[in-house]
């Protein structure tokens, strides 16, 4: 302290700025240490691991193998199937969830009594635990004695689908479950966006003689475009990192019919303990997510230029 008293005003200012920086860093530090150690370093580490072979978690057995893991991946039939399954799941979940949530949000944005009730009911499956929800779905869609198939049989359907027990129907069953569970979340997102559209816009269009479809096409849809992009990105990323649903309901089966990318990563890392190869697969997930995000940002720029 005595030293600062003797120096001139300029260094004092420097000291003040440094003190300000230090105070700010002290605020960030507790979170930052954790963030660096548990997020940043592991992300960097996964790139390193992806070009290494490291089996059974034995530290001395780490060897640099270059792009061998990537070569192995291309001939790994389960990997290729898992990518196909993930894409199938994504194509099944994203458009349906998007369309349904927009429709529900538009209905709930009407002059409506009991909006809070409807919103709560539609949102609840989203916060309910997947393990509990999967129990009911498994029972409801039980191929022999489940109420769904009993109803279908009663309605005269000869051979009702065997749902999660059949290689053909397992994925559609999980897609249905995912849509049912998540649609409420995106409905709330859309509802917030719709409520941000000025009423006058639609009223003016009505006075000008626009019908409901024209109003949707030229007002509602363009106004919610940024939300649509947000929802699409969120949903697509969600579908590519999906794991829990498959693990809890079908364990990737029957056969490999619901084996998705993260399920394959999980199997390679924590069941076969091939940490290197599992990291290579993780890099693929990272690349997919990156490409989706960048692609959608570019398209968004093109489509929302009127804003």
């Amino acid at each position, binding site marked *: 302290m005595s030293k600062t008293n003797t120096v001139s005003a300029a260094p004092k200012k420097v000291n003040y700025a440094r003190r300000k920086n230090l105070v700010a860093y002290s605020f960030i530090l507790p979170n930052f240490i954790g*963030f660096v150690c548990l997020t940043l370093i592991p992300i960097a580490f996964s790139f390193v691991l992806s070009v290494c072979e490291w089996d059974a978690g034995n530290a001395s057995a780490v060897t640099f193998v270059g792009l061998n893991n990537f070569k192995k991946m291309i001939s790994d039939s389960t990997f290729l199937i898992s990518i196909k399954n993930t894409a199938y799941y994504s194509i099944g979940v994203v458009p349906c969830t998007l369309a349904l949530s927009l429709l529900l949000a538009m209905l709930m944005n009407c002059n409506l009594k009991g909006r809070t009730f409807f919103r709560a009911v539609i949102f609840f499956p989203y916060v309910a635990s997947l393990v*509990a929800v999967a129990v009911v779905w498994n*029972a409801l869609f039980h191929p022999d004695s489940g109420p769904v198939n009993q109803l279908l049989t009663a309605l005269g359907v000869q051979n009702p689908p065997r749902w999660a027990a059949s290689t053909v129907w397992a994925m559609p069953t999980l897609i249905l479950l995912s849509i049912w569970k998540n649609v409420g979340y995106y409905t709330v997102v859309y509802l917030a966006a719709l409520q941000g559209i000025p009423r006058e816009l639609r009223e003016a269009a009505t006075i000008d003689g626009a019908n409901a479809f024209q109003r949707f096409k030229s007002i509602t849809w363009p106004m919610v475009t940024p939300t649509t992009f947000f929802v699409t990105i969120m949903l697509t990323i969600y579908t590519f990192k999906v794991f829990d649903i498959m693990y809890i309901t079908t364990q990737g089966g029957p056969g490999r019919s619901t084996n998705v990318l993260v399920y394959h990563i999980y199997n390679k890392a924590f069941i076969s303990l091939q940490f290197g190869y599992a990291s290579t697969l993780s890099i693929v997930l990272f690349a997919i997510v990156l490409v989706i995000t960048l692609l959608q940002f570019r398209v968004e720029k093109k489509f929302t230029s009127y804003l």
Partner: protein
Amino acid sequence: MYSSLKSKNPSVYYFLQVLLYTTLLAGSLIMLLPFAWMLSSSFKAQKDVFNFPIEWIPGEIHPENYKTIWTQIPLVRYFSNTIKLTAIITVIQLLTSSFAAYAFAKLEFKGRNQLFLLYIMTIAIPWQVYMVPQYIMMSKFGLTNSHLGLILMHTFTAFGVFLIRQFYMGIPNDLLEAARIDGLSEYGIWAKIMLPLSKPAIATLCITSFVNEWNDFMGPLIYLSDDKLKTLQLGLRLFIGQFSADYQLIMAASIISLIPVFIMFISVQKYFVEGVATTGMKG
């Protein structure tokens, strides 16, 4: 636009109203019936679970299903593990996030924008991308198969910092300047002004974190192998595997696992919805 239709063409208006409510009620039924069936099955005898047409109110009521499950699985231990993890993670996350968020929102320092960009970028990267190396690092420090590992893993999220920072940005700088002139330190401002003012953001973060922790499956699945440490979701899953034919017991256990989230959801629904809406808008 509806009101104009009401006076111009009342029959069309009422038809549309009926259509609107019918659609929404049908949608609500689809959302609720699985839960209703779960509840009613949890009171049935094993042989009656799959009776068709569905008996919504069971002929014989077996409330003892709810007693049986407590003796079949260590539910109390699973509950207390989950509550402990949820509480600790939520509190630490809240403190470190709001602390960092204050610096990002209200303090000027070298590298602020670059650092914040780093945080934002990692929000978009799914945890599944780096869970393997993270697990390896944790195991090197002996943190796997322990609650501490899970706590560390879930506490320092970029999302928490982002959420609270967005809220802090809306608090006027004049307020902080006045406090600085009055001689309050930055730490004092955080504790006495920012924290009390950001109750809505805190509530949102608490609820998000509570629901995430309560329902988390993959984290505990990978990290916890010791049965003493297992959480409710993991325990429930094990129970389902062991008693796969006793649907009435599985349903009862599932109902019990849903109750805390249900109560929380009913009582603070507003914050759930606001949390979703704000993150949606900001993104």
